[in-house]
């Protein structure tokens, strides 16, 4: 592990970042509060960008370079857009914990949504890229049936029919989509993290993406019609069940009957 990385992992680092972020936020509030909406946004943006840049330098630059133009251990972020940052940092993949075949999703992102917005604003300012999607497309409420079809055509080959996940080559995998927020699903399609292809708006219109998100929401919420669903992985767990519990009970009964004298 490089010395830089070691320092970044120091427990105090997070504290310093937090204090810094709070200072920036406090300062921003003082500056922004009394102004008119339009001007506020412009300044907010530039304020956010500066704050984001600061965050970036202390957390991401070690890999992505101080200008996010690519560094020793990370690609250039110029033009990846706010959506990519929001997805990568929001799902806890970035800052990368350890190099490996694939960045892992973390249960808790390392930054608050406000900080993520700042980072996103900073990266977005470097070059045009996909923006964070508006919530009207990410909250569900679309056509489930259509979304299901689109999902089976475009996503099931990697993520499995119910979004339970699937394996790719050499330790890479398409993760389960069951606990992913609608916004992150949308951003994943938009930005295509790592081995996943990009589904831009000509491949899948925003309405299509909304339908897919609604479908996934339904899979998660729908009651399991036939009893326990064994994880929705298809025939493998079913076979395992038959070979263990199923035949186990029957053999148990056979042994019991065999013991019982007439």
């Amino acid at each position, binding site marked *: 592990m490089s010395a830089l990385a070691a320092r970044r992992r120091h427990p105090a680092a997070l504290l310093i970042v937090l204090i810094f972020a709070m200072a920036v936020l406090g300062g921003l509030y003082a500056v922004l509060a009394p102004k008119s909406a339009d001007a506020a946004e412009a300044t907010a943006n530039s304020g956010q960008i500066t704050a984001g840049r600061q965050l970036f330098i202390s957390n991401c630059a070690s890999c992505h370079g101080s200008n996010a133009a690519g560094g020793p251990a990370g690609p250039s972020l110029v033009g990846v857009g706010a959506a990519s940052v929001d997805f990568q940092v929001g799902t806890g993949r970035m800052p990368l914990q350890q190099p490996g075949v694939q960045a892992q999703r973390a249960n808790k992102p390392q930054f608050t949504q406000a900080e993520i917005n700042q980072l996103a604003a900073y990266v977005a300012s470097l070059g045009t890229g996909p923006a964070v999607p508006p919530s009207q497309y990410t909250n569900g409420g679309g056509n489930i049936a259509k979304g299901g079809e689109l999902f*089976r055509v475009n996503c099931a080959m990697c993520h499995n029919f119910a979004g339970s*996940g699937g394996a790719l080559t050499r*330790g890479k995998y*398409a993760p389960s989509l069951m606990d992913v927020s609608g916004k992150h699903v949308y951003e994943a399609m938009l930005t295509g993290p790592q081995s996943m292809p990009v589904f831009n708006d000509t491949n899948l219109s925003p309405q299509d993406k909304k339908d897919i998100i609604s479908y996934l929401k339904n899979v998660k919420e729908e009651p399991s019609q036939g009893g326990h669903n064994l994880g929705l*992985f298809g*025939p493998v767990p079913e076979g395992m069940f038959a070979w263990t519990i199923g035949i186990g*009970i029957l053999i148990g009964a056979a042994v019991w009957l065999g013991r019982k004298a007439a």
Partner: protein
Amino acid sequence: MTTSRPADDLRKDDKRDEPKGNGGPAGAIANWVDERTGAAKGARFLMKKVFPDHWSFMLGEIAMYSLIILLLTGTFLTFWFVPSMGETVYNGSYVPLKGVQMSEAFKSTVNISMDVRGGLLIRQIHHWAALLFLVSIMLHMARVFFTGAFRKPREINWIIGLLLFMLAMVEGFAGYSLPDDLLSGTGIRAAEGFMLSIPVIGSYVASLVFGGGFPGEAIIPRLFTVHVLLLPAIIVGLFTAHIILVMVHKHTQYPGPGRTNKNVVGFPLMPVYTAKAGGFFFIVFGVTALISGLVTINPIWMYGPYEPTMVTAGSQPDWYMGFADGALRLLPGRLEFTLLEHTFVFNVFIGAILLIPLMWTAMGIYPFLEKWVTGDNEEHHLLDRPRNAPTRTGIGMAFFVFYFVLFFAAGNDLMAIKLHLSINDITWAFRILTFLGPVMAFWITKRLCLSLQRRDRDLVLHGRETGRIIRTAEGRFFEAHEPLNRYQRWPLVSFASHAPVSLPAGIDRNGVRRRKAAADKMRVRLSHFFFNDRIEPVTPAELEAAHHHDEPVREEIDHTVEEARRLEGDDFGGKLHGGAEELSSSSAYGHPDQR
């Protein structure tokens, strides 16, 4: 009877046929049938049949009951299932599929699941029963193999069993394909690929089966006929033959006191065994129904309808086809090559087309191979304890390990995500295990059997360690070994151990009988492979000698034995319950009337 002719008086003392038995209405009906068919004789023959009791004998019964469950629930499903690939749009009650294009077959299966009362339960019972059917068939086969129940006179039944196993697999695959969902459609797609991989004639075979290009409109209706008519008929036919042969041969039994090659110790079919078996049927049905009520199987409404453009991660067949799928996953792509402008896809062909016939041939040949090697022409109605046939048991384990390596390889993708490993590494590990696993399994199993046999010998010769220390008059210490009584000893000494055969005399290397000589040499080599390492059963002389050797503590031991006898009750008669059936001395399967 109401006429009053004088002649009637003359007849009033006549014997009449009518009120023969007094079995009530049931007896009357049975009588009516018997007088017209002579069925009673056969029934009496059946009812007197004696069946031995052991849980492992009930594995076949689980298969039988599962088959009955499948026939019942399958018939129910045909009432609603529409075997057609005609396109339609779903408009039923399951919202997530509303307005989706699908085939009639898929739509009707969704309807069975969502709208037919009890339909989903029946579908799930049908499918769970199918899985359990094949699990029990396989375990039943394993029991037959490891106990040597396939030996003369039961070779034909072994072959019938193998056919049943294979047909059940095909039947399951056909049924699994009927709903035309995303997963099974992928399976049919793969099956088409398998056919195409047959050298030279592949494309003709595929277009014949599919009635043109893939998927066409024909495959589901054809599979339907195969699934509900053709294969069930053959399976039921073979199954009947299977059962009749069991009746004719009589059931085998494990070695034990009072059990010989000439009898069967157990319960008569009527009433004890029938009651037990009937009870067991309800247990199997009940457990299957319970599982089906609690655990989803094949949720086709979540898979969605099949479209040739779609596929899902984790596409696997049902477990019983897993080993073939695994073989496909393991075969390296390098086996695909082009020769004379033909592409040969041996990486598919070997796993998908050759594997099953090869494995089944190997299993089918085994009884004959073993008979040839041992030269044993006896009838066997007493089972081997697996340890007493170490090489056979080793071969069986090697075969099972081979099978299960392939089987688990079919889940390599799920292992990769669950264990966070690379699917490539897993695949390589399985490739190595395919070859290494069976060899290791053979060696370990054989050694294990031999040491178990050695322990049996020890037990017979020196008795059971009691943990009691005895001090003799001179102050020497012994651990008291308690000899086995006759009944405990019996199963440990009553087995045959074959010695390796040597080259028969009179066959020279340049004689006319050269080819026969080669076969003989082969036989000698195999015989050595089978029987070089072997443990002989204890002979009475050895037993005598051993007791002599243990003389210093003999008296103590004798005392202990007395005690044990008193406690355990040496009187075997009390333990022999049910009944014993004599087999005719010449043959076990003579005509029932001769007995």
